[in-house]
């Protein structure tokens, strides 16, 4: 009998079985349910309609309104207010209201809610982010959230796993965002449909835990059910600095079965920009011959709004100015990141460069607010999707890139190679 992957092992432990195999339908216990502003009110409606006036365990529920906060209009204000009252009623103390707010997938690990080996669900497709800590995390819909809030467990089909082995040293100016954009370019937006994506290799080990989150965050953009990275010393240091929750580290067996193993030489990677309208539409920056003028540069989101991202961008922006005619919007992903960036003087660097710094929010990443694009406008963005109309008008365009490429492009007013600024 062959061994199991980390994903199969975590799911097996959560459904009380010794061994499970891909394709099997299981009911798995859920350790963390995260609820945000967009997908939670329908779940509350469903529970009320079904006459279920309880949650399975308030301590395992974390509520983080983030998409349209600070409330962008009356409807969003009503939604958040409803969730606020619901959380209070059910004794859910993990509620990140304004003042402690931020993008849910940045807050969850930062505040110590995630430990290796857990199962996490949220009504948000980028829930796969938390696999960076060696947990099984996946996005689901509102009905799933309602069911799990009531029962504490949820049905899953055990996914097959594809291993992505990335070895070699990254060149200067190339980051984890470029790695994942290269992988998605290679697999396509449905190349990992229904699959667990396990990232491994020396390049992944060399990355910080935060940089790893950028990779697992975008597993969904290749169609993946989850992204996962085996925990190592860095993971444990990251987790222990934030929580005293007990956990046990799970790793893949040497004889685990993989659907496919894909190998990459990271030393060959270059800065990549994903052109409209798919994240798989990546081009190496060297291949871009024409000038692509941009109206807006956006730095933020659950993909690349963490402190390291702001540091890289600030390093490039320092002493420079955003090109006249171009707007740059910086959105630190959480309140703690905002405060840290302020302490380090990064926010001053952005403001001196005539960028603006917003309060944490999902904001314009999904075309919510705080930087919506007009017809025909172009934005280079450190976010995760460049679908039609993603950040505004259906005839606007989004180009995805690393924080460094976003910063360099803001300075030049056109898509630009960050490497010249890092010498």
């Amino acid at each position, binding site marked *: 009998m062959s061994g199991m992957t980390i994903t199969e092992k975590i799911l097996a432990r959560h459904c009380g079985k010794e061994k499970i195999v891909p394709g099997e339908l299981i009911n798995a216990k859920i350790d963390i349910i995260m609820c945000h502003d967009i997908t939670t009110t329908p779940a509350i409606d469903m529970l009320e309609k079904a006459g279920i006036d309880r949650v399975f365990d308030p301590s395992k529920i974390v509520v983080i309104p983030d998409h349209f906060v600070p409330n962008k209009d009356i409807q969003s204000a009503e939604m958040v207010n409803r969730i606020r009252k619901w959380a209070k009623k059910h004794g859910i103390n993990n509620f990140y209201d304004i003042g402690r707010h931020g993008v849910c997938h940045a807050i969850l690990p930062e505040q110590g809610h995630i430990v290796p080996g857990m199962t996490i669900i949220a009504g948000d497709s980028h829930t796969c982010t938390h696999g960076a800590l060696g947990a099984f995390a996946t996005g*689901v819909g509102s009905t799933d959230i309602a069911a799990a809030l009531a029962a504490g467990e949820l049905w899953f089909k055990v996914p097959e796993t594809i291993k992505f082995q990335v070895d070699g040293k990254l060149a200067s100016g190339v980051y984890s965002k470029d790695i994942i954009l290269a992988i998605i370019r290679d697999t396509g937006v449905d190349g990992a449909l229904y699959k667990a994506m396990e990232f491994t290799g020396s390049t992944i080990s060399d990355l910080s835990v935060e940089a790893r989150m950028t990779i697992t965050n975008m597993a969904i953009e290749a169609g993946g059910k989850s992204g996962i990275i085996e925990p190592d010393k860095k993971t444990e240091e990251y987790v222990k600095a934030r929580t005293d929750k007990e956990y046990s580290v799970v790793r893949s067996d040497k004889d685990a079965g993989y659907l496919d193993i894909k190998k990459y030489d990271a030393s060959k990677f270059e800065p990549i920009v994903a052109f409209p309208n798919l994240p798989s539409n990546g081009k190496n920056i060297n291949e871009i011959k024409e000038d692509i003028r941009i109206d807006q540069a956006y730095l933020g989101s659950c993909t690349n709004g963490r402190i390291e991202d702001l540091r890289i961008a600030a390093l490039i922006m320092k002493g420079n100015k955003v090109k006249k005619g171009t707007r740059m919007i910086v959105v630190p992903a959480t309140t703690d990141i905002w405060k840290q960036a302020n302490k380090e003087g990064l926010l001053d660097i952005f403001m001196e460069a005539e960028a603006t710094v917003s309060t944490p929010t999902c904001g314009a990443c999904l075309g919510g607010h705080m930087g919506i694009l007009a017809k025909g406008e172009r934005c280079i963005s450190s976010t995760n999707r460049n679908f039609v109309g993603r950040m505004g008008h259906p005839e606007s365009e989004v180009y995805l890139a690393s924080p460094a490429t976003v910063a360099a492009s803001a300075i030049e007013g056109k898509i630009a190679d960050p490497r010249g600024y890092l010498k």
Partner: protein
Amino acid sequence: MKIKGFAHVYQRDDINTDEIIPARYLNMDKEKDLALHAMEDLDKEFLKRVKRGDFVIAKDNFGCGSSREHAIWALRGSGIRAVIANSFARIFYRNAINNGFLAIECKDIADKVSKGDELEIDVSNGMIKNLSKNEEYSFTPLPEFAIELMDAGGLINYIKKK
């Protein structure tokens, strides 16, 4: 169970949730409100043409992107009874099952069916009859679990019964 309706065919892969229901409308969550914007960024004429009981036909990876169940509700609210595609994105497919909404995987369906064709779907036997072209196509029958959920009236009722 057999259901009849007319086809809206999109020769497209990767029709995503931002096209099915743009995020600017996610400050609403009621089916009737969302229905007014179904497919808005993909096809401005969709709502003018769609009739209750119709089907959407597409190619690979239908419903990719966000986890928003609003995509299902917008389509269902607009009158769409089923989406038939080569393949579906995972969360969309999951949401369809949980809602008892038909998401049917049928190989190369978008190449076989023309805009406006009348189709009859035999859900239990995995067959689609094209009444306009007098053709038949078989599809992967729904997973047993999906049928159980549908019979129970969706996931919430299913767990309530358990």
